[in-house]
Structure formats: structure tokens, C-alpha cells
């Protein structure tokens, strides 16, 4: 049993989606996360355990390697895909309530801004940390954040902005969230923003990179 989980952890860490996939070369021909999750469920392993003891630790290792510059984004994306293949099979257990995520994270690039590469990376890493993600995309105003919060009460919100003329929109969105959904935790990021700006607009935390964002999310989840 433990062995299966270890294998699954390894498959996700190295981005092995299924048996057919040629990547990574050292695992060629072996089972990927798709088959291993199936076997784990068949062996009667608790789905929550699959998530907590294989998938999340695998992505934590990936995140650590990435933040230490030991792997590039494409490798991280392969791991995210392998995790996705596993999650697909765990989905019924999320719906039935047998598995609980740490919570929901709603993320978007603010109104007027289209830069989304950084936002996508942050979303991916937080998902790997065991959160459900609602990605609202780019050019998102306060209305859509509030709407999403209403559908996912208690969710944490992440705002991204890359332009000096759109970061001010973060302020408006924070004010509006505070008014309509008080108590919401709001995380911000993007090249022009910093901790000082975060405090000024009344957001909760500024993270310069995905790793710091995940650390903060883990802290508030515990």
C-alpha cells in the first residue's frame, strides 16, 4: 500500500502522466499517475490519504526544486499535469465530500491588465498545495470577484497586476471585497506591487513569488 503511494508520489514529482507518455525518459514504460491512482483506489487506499500523502507532498517537492532553480517551468507543468490526471479520478470523492481540499483560491489579473503568466504560475502552485482553484482570467473587475466569492464563501482571493496604471485597480477591488465579503483573506502580487502597497490598500499579504504564496496559504489553512 505504502509502496503504491510512493510510486504515485514519484510519478507526480517527475511528471509521469500515464503509461503511454514518453516523459520523463527515466520512467518510460512504467505506470503513470493515472494508472497508479486507479490501483491505489482499487487497493482501497483512502482518497484523502492519496491526496495528502502522495499528491501534495509530490507538488511540495516540485515547488521546492523550482524555487531552488533546480527545474524549469516545463517540468513543473508536467508534474501539474500528472497531478491533474490523478485528481480526475479523485473528483467523485471531492463531490461526495469524502475528500476535503484546504479551501478555495480565487485568482485573477485585475481590470485593464492582460499580463497573466505570473498569475497562472501562482494558481498552479497553489493548486498543487491542495487548494481548489477558481481562475477568473485577466481584466477582472470587482464585480466578478464578489460573484465568485458568493459562490465560494470563505475562499481566499489572489490579485495580480503588472502595470502601474492597473495596480490602483487592486485598491478598488480590495475595498469592494471588504465591503461585500468582510473577513476575506486577500493576497496580491505582480512586478510593480510590494508590501507597502499591500498595506496601503488594505490587502492581507504580498507575495513576490509562487513559493511564498504557497507558504502563506499553508499558514492560514493550519
Amino acid at each position, binding site marked *: 500500500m505504502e509502496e503504491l503511494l510512493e510510486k504515485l508520489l514519484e510519478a507526480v514529482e517527475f511528471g509521469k502522466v500515464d503509461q503511454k507518455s514518453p516523459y520523463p525518459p527515466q520512467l518510460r514504460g512504467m505506470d503513470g499517475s493515472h494508472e497508479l491512482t486507479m490501483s491505489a483506489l482499487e487497493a482501497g487506499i483512502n482518497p484523502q490519504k492519496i491526496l495528502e500523502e502522495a499528491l501534495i507532498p509530490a507538488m511540495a517537492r516540485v515547488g521546492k526544486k523550482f524555487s531552488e532553480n533546480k527545474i524549469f517551468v*516545463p517540468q513543473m*507543468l508536467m508534474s501539474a499535469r500528472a497531478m491533474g490526471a490523478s485528481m480526475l479520478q479523485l473528483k467523485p470523492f471531492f463531490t461526495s465530500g469524502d475528500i476535503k481540499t484546504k479551501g478555495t483560491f480565487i485568482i485573477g489579473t485585475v481590470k485593464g491588465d492582460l499580463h497573466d*503568466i505570473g498569475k497562472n504560475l501562482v494558481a498552479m502552485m497553489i493548486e498543487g498545495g491542495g487548494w481548489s482553484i477558481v481562475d477568473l482570467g485577466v481584466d477582472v473587475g470587482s464585480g466578478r470577484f464578489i460573484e465568485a466569492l458568493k459562490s465560494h464563501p470563505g475562499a481566499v482571493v489572489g490579485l495580480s497586476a503588472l502595470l*502601474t*496604471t*492597473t*495596480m490602483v485597480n487592486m485598491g478598488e477591488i480590495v475595498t469592494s471585497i471588504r465591503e461585500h465579503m468582510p473577513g476575506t483573506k486577500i493576497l496580491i502580487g505582480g512586478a510593480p506591487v510590494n508590501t507597502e502597497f499591500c498595506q496601503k490598500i488594505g490587502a492581507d499579504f504580498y507575495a513576490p513569488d509562487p513559493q511564498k504564496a504557497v507558504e502563506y496559504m499553508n499558514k492560514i489553512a493550519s
Partner: protein
Amino acid sequence: MKYKNLIITDPEGLIFGIAPNPVKTRRGLEIGGGQVYAELNFTLPIMSICDSTLPEVYRHYREIAEGALEHALHLESKGVVLEFETLLEMTKTPTIGIEITRIMNEVCENYYQKHGLKSEIRLTPNDLREFERPAKQRTSQYLEPMMELFEKGAMAGGDLLSIESTGGKEVSDDALMNCDIKTIVFALAVLGARDMQFLWKKIVDVANKHGKIAAGDSACGFANTAMVLAEKKYIPKIFAALVRVISVVRSIVAMEEGAIGPDKDCAYEGPFLKAITGIPISMEGKTAACAHLSPIGNIASACCDLWSNESVQNIKLLSGMAPTAYMEQLEYDARLMNEALRAGKLHRDVLQQLLVASDVYTDPQALILSPENVIRISRELVKGDSYVANAKNGALMALDIIEEALASGKMKLSEMETSYLPFLREDLESIPDNESDFVEMMLPLIDQSKFTMEEYGL
């Protein structure tokens, strides 16, 4: 394929300040005509752009232009280009962009009349079509305000027309993160090139109608993005170098449609365009560090005709306003290059050698920009019968050059980097030369919900 041969065939001919086809402007700049001018890029500080802040927005741009030109005058500048990259609101509501152009042109004209200081404005509307996904490159409602800004902005004094157009970007964004070189070729050599044909016909028409200059289009969203990601160690530098080479086949379409330069700087594909078409180019390097870091600080200037920076906010530094400070840095770099040009071939060649040698083996992205390598790669970029073939051949030559530098021990790269070499080569070699064969090969591999074929005439 309009260009089958290079205009500059010898690396020695690829030098700063001199372009085979210089561009003369209304107030007398001769770009590529024997000297290097500064091109200043600037932006607003933290603020929103709305009705109530418009007077403040206009004040900022007037202050930037006046501060920059006053200091250029003080430094006995031979001429300046002001690079106005519009922000969303200024293109969506073209009257804002037009008014800012008018204000800055008034400042330029004033310095010209009173002091004889020559300056021009490069007007770069941002490509609004990005706001729709999947992009409607040809039928977007946003084309109208964008083209209005081009036309009326040109009439208001935006004499050099440029854009960083985004055709194919909806496909390339993911490809960059996945280091998927085949999809990058698809995005740039198929979608990008096709969109450039569509868009640049229109821009050239506007320029011709009003006696303005269709300058050029830089693949910022592709090659600059790749460089910034590589600089953050998110993707391999080798990959970013290849993206730059591939972007040439897309950016050259502006020239095929009638653009004459100076090409725009952001994606650093200018040296190849200069070698192939003879147009003058703008480049940015160490001076762009206000907006993003780069591994090509010195080598980028080796054959520039305009020497530029990247968006610097109008904020106060201890010396003065930041755009004025950057004006000074650009001016001193230009002065040095101009002094070398004045002193003769020996001096200018030595200066160029130093600019090249100080960067060339530190990063594959620098390596491909040495004049010698630019010529080697450019030959490959024009030898095929399709953009796809040219992209593939150029990228393969860049890979050869990178591998040679590694084999000789002159350039060192981590194992993490070099492990990508065989995959990249294999992928590139699998690309057929013919566009329709390539499209057929790629369509099943690409998420087709991301783009609309008809919007690219496919």
C-alpha cells in the same frame, strides 16, 4: 518571400549608427545615417487613467517630454526619439492617445524652433485585440479605435508608427511555458506572419496617406517574454535564444509590407532585420533594467541606430525625474558610439568588439547577437520558400552556433540547460518546409479552442 538575400553580407558592415537604408524624419533626424540617437521610453507612475485624472496624465507626459528634451539640449544631443507606448485607456479612447501625442509634439517642435534640437515621436498603440479571447484578429471591434489612434496620432505628430502586435500570442503563451518549439514556430511563422500581413498593410496605408513613417513591429509578447522568463530561470536560455531567431520571420513581414524602420526594440530581433533588409533599428540593453533585466546589456548596442531603454516611470529620483535620468544615460552611450564613428573605422570597430566580447559567451541569447552570428543566422532565415522553412532553418543554425560555442569551451551552460538541446533539435528537424503540411501536422497537437483559424485567413 520578398527578401531572398542579405543587404549586409559581411559582419563588418553591421555596425552601430550606419544602415544601408537610413530613414530621414520631418525634423531632420537621419536614422542610420552615420550617428546613433537616443530613443527614450517612459510611462506613468502609479495612478489610474480616468476622466478625473486626465489633466494629471497630460501633465505627466508634458513634464516627461520637457524634462528629457531640456536635458538632451544641455548635453548637446544630436537628436532624440520619444517612444510613446500607449496604455490601454489611451488606445481604447483614442482621443487620449492623440492628445498626449499632440502635447509631446508641441514640446518637440518648440525645442526644434527655439534651439534646433531635432526630435520625433514614435507612436506605439498597444494591440487592443488581446482583450478578446479567442482573439478576433481581423474582425475585432477594437481594430477601429486602434487604427484611429494610428491615423490621428500620426497627424498629431506621431511620425514613426510602430506596434508590438500580438497575432499568434494566444497560442504562444502556453508554448513558451512548455518550451514547445514547434508550437512557437506555428504561432510566429504561421499565425504571427499572417496577422502581420493583415495589420501592416493598414499601417503602411496610414503612413503613406499622411506622409509619415511606417517604422516596424517588435515581437515583444514572444521574444521579450521568453527572455524575461529565462532571466527568472523559468525556461532555458537556449530556448529563449531560439524564440528570438524565430520571431524574425514574423517581424520582417512589416518590411515586406512597406515598413522602412527604424524597427522597434523590445524583442531584440533588430540586428537580423538590419542585415536582411538594410533598415535602421532601435535596440535596448543595459538601459532597459528599469523595466526588466537582460543578459545582453552591451552586445545589444553593437549595431543599433537608435539606443533605447524600456518603460521608466515618471517618478522623482535624487538626480531629477527618472525619464530625464535615463535620457542622460542613453545620451552618454550614444555620445561614445558617435565619437567612435567620428574617429574612424579602427575606433568604431574596437568599440564594437568590446561591446560584443564583454557579453557574447555569457549567454546563448547574447551569443546569437554577435554580428558574425547574426549574419550566419540571417542567411538561413531567407533561404527557404516559406516563413516556416525560414524559421526552422534559422533556429537550427542558432542551435549549431550554441553547440559550437559549448564544444569549444567558450560558453558554459548547466546540465539543466544543455539537456534541452537534443529535444529542441529533434523537434525543429521534424518540421516540414511547406506551410500547409506544417499546419496539418500541428492542428491535432494544438488546443484549437484557443484561436480562430479564419481570423488568420486559414
